[in-house]
């Protein structure tokens, strides 16, 4: 046998060996490439883990799959505890642009993984879309099915593709802060949809109690090394940290992540940082993210200590709180002091629980009479949320993922996102909530109602709302929010397949919505619909009164139409806004 033949045979053998590896595991890679966004908007960070054999890898990127824009040789990280881990921050990118990347072994050229991402928006962008999820732990098949669904959701259209650009996560990524849990619950070779999702969508977030060990984290910090400004090593350790709080800007949005397992009491380093962070951001939209909700629908206990942050939420005009911990969807809040009933809660701020990201589902407590006050809406479901910022408007949708199995990878519905009648993955709306940065001009408006009549033929209650401007002229669109009512049109049709109550829950609306335990306030009116609403604000119906402003001293009358099946007394406080 000549040397040439020998070499050919040797090459064939090597190829065969690698091929064999490729069919049983990710040849050369233990954890396929995934993304985090660390800022600025001209960068994207790619992480992966080799198999301890091929230690030097190459990353290439470009605006198409020729990856011709740039490449780099990436050695293993030198951070203590990051054995076999690689991390590379691609720089010099353009904001708001789609890029493609590939990670390969430098020696053999074996491709470990590919992906594409959309860079963060321009700093002065006024619109952006992204996803929110939480509590992905413990059930890898469920997590895989959810990520498969969200990926397909984002692929519906170019407009929906915007959601791919970022996911914010509120904690409990795996069930314990340990290597084996990341391997068995997140970086699972068979869970190809998890890998596909995280290869193309950066995930930024905060730790949960399951990612925490006595106030510290080791493997969470290893795999999700967000730009923590004050991460602190545990005494005597090389890779265990606390103070894992941080914040980020994303177009018009500022997201602040609070580490609930490091002190955030007034006077603590984290509290002082939080005050400075919220005070100094110039972004119009502010989201506060932490794991354990200050107010939820259960079943895990609310974090009463987190309620100490509510005054900061009010003081610094935080728009919403995004938390998890309880494995379901819930929106809690209070609109008036009477509803707050002495509880420390920022008024008119929606507190979201988005904990249906893969962990076993919890059933909500709708009573507002026990340990979980101020529930407005809730739903047991595997779910995710979408955030859609457009100038002064933020629209949030909570979606239920239907037919999520925790024992097998489930196919998508043939009519996705709609259901096809089979046990396939589809999406249905739990609730839509809109927030607006309109100007409250109620102080200069006199609002009166009149001509309120029930029509037995149409079964509608109609009347007039007259607004008189007692102050300076108002220009543009004038809207009136009927404060005190639930915007029923925002409630979706997601079914109760995940309800284990007997009988199953049928309504997403809590008893005496928004009230505290023992409150005499009746809560939001929950069975009256403003049928001619033109929008909503923070879960309450809204109607446009004028599109051409309102002069000083002038009046405008807008017709109101209600559906009121139980003839309950209609009560609301009309609050006027200028867009």
């Amino acid at each position, binding site marked *: 046998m000549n040397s040439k033949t020998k070499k050919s045979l040797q090459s064939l053998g090597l190829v065969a060996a690698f091929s064999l590896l490729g069919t049983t595991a990710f040849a050369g890679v233990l954890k396929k490439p995934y993304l985090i966004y660390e800022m600025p908007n001209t960068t994207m960070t790619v992480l992966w883990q080799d198999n301890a054999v091929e230690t030097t890898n190459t990353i290439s990127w470009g605006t198409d799959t020729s990856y011709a824009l740039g490449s780099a040789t990436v050695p293993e990280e030198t951070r203590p505890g990051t054995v076999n881990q690689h991390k590379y921050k691609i720089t010099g990118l353009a904001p708001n642009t789609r890029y493609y990347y590939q990670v390969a072994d430098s020696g053999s050229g074996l491709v470990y993984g590919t992906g594409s991402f959309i860079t963060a928006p321009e700093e002065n962008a006024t619109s952006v879309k992204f996803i929110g999820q939480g509590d992905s732990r413990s059930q890898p098949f469920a997590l895989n099915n959810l990520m498969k669904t969200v990926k397909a959701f984002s692929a519906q259209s170019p407009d929906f593709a915007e959601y791919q650009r970022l996911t914010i996560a509120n904690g409990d990524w795996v069930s314990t802060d340990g290597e084996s849990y990341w391997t068995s619950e997140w970086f699972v070779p068979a869970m190809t949809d998890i890998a596909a999702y995280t290869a193309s969508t950066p995930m930024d977030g905060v730790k949960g109690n399951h990612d925490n060990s006595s106030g510290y984290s080791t493997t969470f910090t290893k795999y999700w090394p967000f730009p923590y400004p004050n991460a602190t090593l545990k005494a005597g350790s090389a890779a265990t940290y606390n103070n894992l709080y941080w914040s980020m800007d994303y177009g018009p949005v500022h997201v602040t992540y609070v580490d609930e397992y490091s002190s955030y009491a007034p006077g603590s380093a984290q509290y002082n940082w939080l005050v400075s962070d919220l005070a100094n951001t110039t972004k119009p939209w502010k989201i506060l993210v932490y794991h354990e909700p200050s107010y939820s629908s259960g079943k895990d206990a609310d974090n009463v200590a987190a309620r100490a942050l509510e005054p900061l939420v009010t003081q610094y005009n935080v728009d919403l709180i995004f938390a998890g911990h309880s494995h379901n969807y819930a929106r809690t809040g209070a609109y008036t002091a009477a509803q707050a009933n002495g509880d420390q809660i920022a008024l008119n701020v929606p507190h979201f629980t988005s904990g249906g990201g893969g962990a076993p589902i919890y059933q909500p407590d709708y009573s507002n009479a026990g340990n979980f006050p101020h529930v407005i809406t809730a739903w047991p479901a595997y779910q995710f949320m979408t955030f859609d910022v457009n100038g002064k408007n933020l629209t949030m949708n909570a979606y239920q993922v239907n037919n999520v199995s925790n024992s097998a990878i489930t196919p998508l519905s043939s009519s996705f996102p709609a259901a096809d009648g089979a046990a396939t993955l589809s999406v249905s709306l739990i609730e839509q909530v809109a927030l607006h940065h309109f100007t409250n001009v109620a102080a200069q408006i006199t609002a*009166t109602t*009149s001509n309120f*009549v029930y029509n*037995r033929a149409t079964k509608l209650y109609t009347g007039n709302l007259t607004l008189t401007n007692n102050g300076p002229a108002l220009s543009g669109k004038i809207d009136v929010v009927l404060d005190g009512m639930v915007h029923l049109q925002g409630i979706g049709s997601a079914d109760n397949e995940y309800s284990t109550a007997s009988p199953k829950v049928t309504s997403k609306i809590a008893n005496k919505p928004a009230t505290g335990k023992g409150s005499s306030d009746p809560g939001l009116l929950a069975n009256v619909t403003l049928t001619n609403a033109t929008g909503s604000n923070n879960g309450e119906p809204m109607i446009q009164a004028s599109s051409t402003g309102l002069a000083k001293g002038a009046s405008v009358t807008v017709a109101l139409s209600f559906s009121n099946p139980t*003839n309950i*007394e*209609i*009560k609301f406080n009309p609050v006027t806004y200028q867009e």
Partner: protein
Amino acid sequence: MKFKAIKLFTASLVLLAAGSAYATPIHETLYTPTLNGTAGYIYLQNGTINNGATVKVENFTTDGTLGAVDTVNVLNLASGTLPGTVTFGSATKDVTDYNQAITFGNWINFDLDYSAFTQGSSTFTFSFFSDIQGLAPLLTYNGAVFMSDLNSDNSVTSSNAAPVPEPSTMLLLCAGLVGIFAVKLRRKGTPVEVVGLTA
């Protein structure tokens, strides 16, 4: 000066001319000569927003004939029976209503008495229908012949669907003045018919 013979909602015009100050009771006459002899229903309703008032219909008289009170095609039946006092208002329900058969005559008189007013607004409506379910209105497009709003500032604004006579405003004023004089002479429950002067 020639005046046509006209039939007026005289009492209500005087009240309207006097302005919209809240005063109880409010005296109203609904004139129904075009429905004289017709069988139908009178539907009374009080709707409230933000804890509206309790309303009483008192001193009801008519030259028509009242029939049976309907307890089915109502949302929340008012208490009492015409021609006695009927009270509208509820601490928990939005609309209180009352539906009764009638063979119309030429007029209907009643007093509207707002009491127990707290806040918000109330709208009292007096409607005519030809059917018990309220699907076939009489006289107006929706059957509402009289509507009275008690506003949160204690003011009352009322409207009456009585057809406005053809004579000029001056004739109307003259007729009103004559009407005032006639009312003073009228016995309780008797309508006033104003006959104009002819040249």
